[in-house]
């Protein structure tokens, strides 16, 4: 579905991503792990078009999409969340969601002036959808709260909620679990699986929570210093010597071993 081909990105002297290649297959939930600063978020930023790579290619559905803008990629079905919540602060939680659906009639200024009734009808549908998402995320009580006033975890959920407001093909989730409570997280994991199974979504998700990775992701790709260290199913990645050394460490190894 997405093929990442020797992608690199430098910021001044820092090579954040350095010759990274791997594929995200259709219908998978691909996990992306690796130490802090490995370049995972930078990779997402390039796939989603936040900035162009210094070199390398991104092929999506057989098409070279390197360097397309974020909004163009969104319309091709690539939707992402941000690791650090990018909420619209002085807009309500509901508005944060309602702005997402593409091609709303009321985004055309002349329609808002001269065919308000049609715009309003569509607004009702969009609002209903937004309220459903809020309910699923257990955020109904903060519907009209300004997003800037929400707690860290609530902002994180709102991030996720935005991806639920559109029909996506590929969803890139950057640490969706960070700061979210356990019961809700289990529910989110179920939702992710369900969207994959029933609607054929493809997911790529960055996580430091190995339980979530183990539960959801196959395959798992481990990055270090801007490149792929190893990939495969969770077990094989977890027991890979290099991964242990660079990221999980032997204690983490024992810990997950103990739990398994």
């Amino acid at each position: 579905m997405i093929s990442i081909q020797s992608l690199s990105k430098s910021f001044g002297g820092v090579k954040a991503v350095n010759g990274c290649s791997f594929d995200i297959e259709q219908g998978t939930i691909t996990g992306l792990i690796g130490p802090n600063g490995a370049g995972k978020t930078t990779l997402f930023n390039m796939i989603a078009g936040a900035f162009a790579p210094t070199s390398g290619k991104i092929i999506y559905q057989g098409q070279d999409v390197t360097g397309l803008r974020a909004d163009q990629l969104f319309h091709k079905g690539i939707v992402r969340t941000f690791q650090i919540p990018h909420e619209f602060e002085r807009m309500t939680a509901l508005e944060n969601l309602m702005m997402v659906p593409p091609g709303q009639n009321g985004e055309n200024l002349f329609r808002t002036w001269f065919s308000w009734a049609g715009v309003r009808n569509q607004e009702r549908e969009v609002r209903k959808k937004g309220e459903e998402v809020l309910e699923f995320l257990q955020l109904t009580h903060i519907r009209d709260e300004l997003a800037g006033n929400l707690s860290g975890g609530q902002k994180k959920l709102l991030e996720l909620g935005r991806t639920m407001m559109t029909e996506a093909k590929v969803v890139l989730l950057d640490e969706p679990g960070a700061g979210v409570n356990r019961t809700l997280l289990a529910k989110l994991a179920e939702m992710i699986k369900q969207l994959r199974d029933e609607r054929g979504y493809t997911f790529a998700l960055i996580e430091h929570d190995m339980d979530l990775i183990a539960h959801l992701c196959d395959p798992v790709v481990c990055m270090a210093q801007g490149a792929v260290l190893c990939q495969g199913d969770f077990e094989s990645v977890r027991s890979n010597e290099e991964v242990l050394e660079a990221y999980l460490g032997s204690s983490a190894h024992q810990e997950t071993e103990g739990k398994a």
Partner: protein
Amino acid sequence: MEGLINFGILFLTMAGIYGILSLGLNVQWGFTGMLNVGIAAFFAVGAYSSAIVTSVGDLPHWGGIGAPMIIGFAAAMIVSGIMAFFVGLITLNLRSDYLAIASIGIAEIIRLVLKNEEWMTGGVNGFTGISGKFNNIFDGGHALLYMIMVMVVLGIAYFLCERAYKSPWGRVQRAIRENEIAARAMGKNSLSFRLQSFVLGSAIMGLGGAVYTHFTGFISPEAFDPLLATFLIWVMLIAGGSGNNKGAILGAFIIWGVWSGTEFITSSILPADMATQGAYLRVLFIGILLQAILLTRPQGLLPENAPQPDKD
């Protein structure tokens, strides 16, 4: 008593004109967060455009077309809008602070053109032959009618801005203002939206210029100096509450009240040869007033309130 009524008519007309300008700025800054510090450029281009198409007679500069006032208003909006389109195309992918600098430059260029291109604008001597001059209260009620018309124009501008604000269009603009990267990630072509907002705001400023032209019946580059035609409008919007269309209008009325009130005071207290110092004092006073408002009401008199889609 009659003097008071007359003063009231002229005051309301000018405040209404500033209300229109302030609404235009609210679209750009209040909705979208674009820092336009060259309001004077769009204000002036609107004023001159309307003057050119509506003026009558054999003039030493452009004009003499003699079109009706309503055509003048339309021409003002179109020309200011087109200018904003090209200015926006060049500057809107700049960061917001660069847009501010670029817009100052554009206002300065426009001012120089108005001053120096006499064949077109009449230069420093001003533009003559404008049809309509409605600031004369002894002119059989025309000033009153004009004031009413200004209020109607202001009302229409308010209605269009308010609907734009509450629509999905306005929601995207605010999202861009809050976090452009996220707005793009959510599929919104932020450049196109920003350009639309810039053009709309500038067209409204141009309309304000046209309304001003027919009020005074005479325009010259002096009328569009940055103090009166940019700074004051910013103060109005910030004091009234940016992001709030009612606030934009309220700010215009209050600040224009203070501005014209202080003129009265400085000119009656200070000796005539200190008129220049008087002007400084008024600016100082407006500055202090703005500080006081922002200290007590950081978001202005009428803060933005995020629309809550109504239940049905």
